[in-house]
């Protein structure tokens, strides 16, 4: 209790003295469970393609950035209520999400989604397919009318295939590349062209910040550093 009172007092004090400036620190929200896009490394820090990309974008846009880890389920609501200023979590640009938040231009091109299963001859239409909740892959399976089971984290979708709960998992190919070939998991030949590239998500009212990130992404596309980074982390095809 004492600690609580102390921290509250400290917070009030800081709130009173610090000068308010719109975006002195830009907080970047990510999931931290989607290698190679974003994950927590051995040291307990956020790492991956988007960590490197985000840090580079902030340097180019001359912003001070800070990383925040947030559950996928509540990643959009927490952006809207201002707990962080941008989502950079392998989020595909879709019309549905565009209604709620704004996206920068895509930093990876649209790539097909892939299936991973224990058996290459799996019958997708009559099988059970795993996908992460609120992803383009989950809505794709639902639209097809196939049997879908949803999981909160990407790791769980693959675990479901490993232990036989699901027959196959549908996810971004780059993510499944990291698990295919282990524990008898194989990638199917069939791919699904869904999603419109991956971009950063921002509040609709935050046009300034969006413009800054957009400019930085264009810059990185132009001088080829973005392609180098994509190749390094094997997250997507080249621009």
């Amino acid at each position, binding site marked *: *209790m004492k*600690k*609580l009172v102390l*921290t*509250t007092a*400290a*917070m009030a004090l*800081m*709130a009173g003295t*610090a*000068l*308010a*400036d*719109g*975006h*002195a*620190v830009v*907080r970047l929200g990510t999931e931290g*469970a989607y*290698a*190679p896009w974003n*994950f*927590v*490394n*051995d*040291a*307990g*820090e956020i*790492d*991956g393609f988007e960590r490197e990309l985000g840090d580079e974008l902030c340097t180019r846009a001359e912003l001070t950035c*800070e990383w*925040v*880890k*947030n*559950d996928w*389920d*509540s990643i959009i*609501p*927490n952006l*809207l*209520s*201002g*707990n962080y*200023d941008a989502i950079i979590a392998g989020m595909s640009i879709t019309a549905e999400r565009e209604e*709620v*938040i704004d996206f920068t231009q895509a930093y990876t091109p649209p790539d097909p989604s892939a299936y991973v299963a224990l058996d290459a001859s799996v019958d997708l239409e009559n099988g059970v397919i795993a996908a992460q909740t609120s992803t383009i892959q989950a809505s794709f399976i639902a639209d097809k009318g196939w049997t879908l089971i949803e999981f909160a*984290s990407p*790791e769980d979708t*693959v*675990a479901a295939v*490993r232990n036989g709960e699901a027959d196959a998992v549908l996810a971004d190919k780059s993510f499944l590349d*990291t*698990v295919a070939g*282990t*524990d008898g998991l194989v990638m199917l030949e069939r791919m699904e062209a869904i999603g419109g590239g991956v971009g950063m998500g921002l*509040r*609709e*009212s*935050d046009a300034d910040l969006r413009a800054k990130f957009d400019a930085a992404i264009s810059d990185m596309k132009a001088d080829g550093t973005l392609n180098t980074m994509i190749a390094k982390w094997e997250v997507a095809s080249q621009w």
Partner: protein
Amino acid sequence: MFEFCSDPEALERLRWFACYLSNGKHMAFYASFGTVMVLLAITAPVAMAFGFAGASAARSRILPIRWLGKGYTAIVRGVPDIVFFLFFVIALDQAFEWMRHQIKCPDWADPIRQGNDFIVCGAAKLPLNTAPQWIHETYGFFLAVLTFAIVFGAFAANVLFGAMRAVPMAQLETAAAYGMSERQTFWRVLVPQMWLYALPGLSNLWLILVKATPLLFLLGVEDIVYWARELGGFVNPRFTDYPHGDWRLFYFLGLLVFYLFLTWGSERVLARLTKRLSHGQATMGGEAARREAQA
């Protein structure tokens, strides 16, 4: 951590584990045990205070206060916890920011709600954007405590309300006969005696609270279950120096042991408390204690 950890691939088994179990990720895991314990230590008394206030309000003579107490217990008990955690915390955060906005930025012209967005002036943000990460984490933790306290307070209020009614009427009548005022009767006779009746219900709540902490991650607070999943999950050798298969079973077994110990410890404390509170009560427990003292 250890010097020999620089090249994990070359290590023999024992040293490999020593290095693996002491990397930064595991340190965060160990620290999260502290987070959970601190959360419990703060939430339990605060929830109890909420519950006591709720129960007292529910038996107030003044109608609006009674409505308030009854409404609080009925509404909170009826809403699923997860809804509370997803919606309520964000609403609470926005309510705080809205109030600060009204005070700090009276000449702000833009609307606060723009479509889906909730925008307050920079000075009203809580915590401020410029605040270091630990302040943000503490604030999230504080919101978690408050939400847990409100939810569990409602259940505690119901338990205490029942316990207050279980105190024998004769006790209260005797107090009145001795000339005690209503307030004196409440504090000197009713409250000391009701705890015994409340204890079974409260101990249930405590044990449920102990196991409810994984809800914390919805609020961005990383608890032990989050880290156990994160650490136990399969990691591709590309992204770690310590590749291993799906070890979640072992991590969750570890958590099982932790929770069992916590439950076991709580049971012991609660048993002692029950014994202590039974003294002098007109119950079977009280009678047993009296006989024991006589023998």
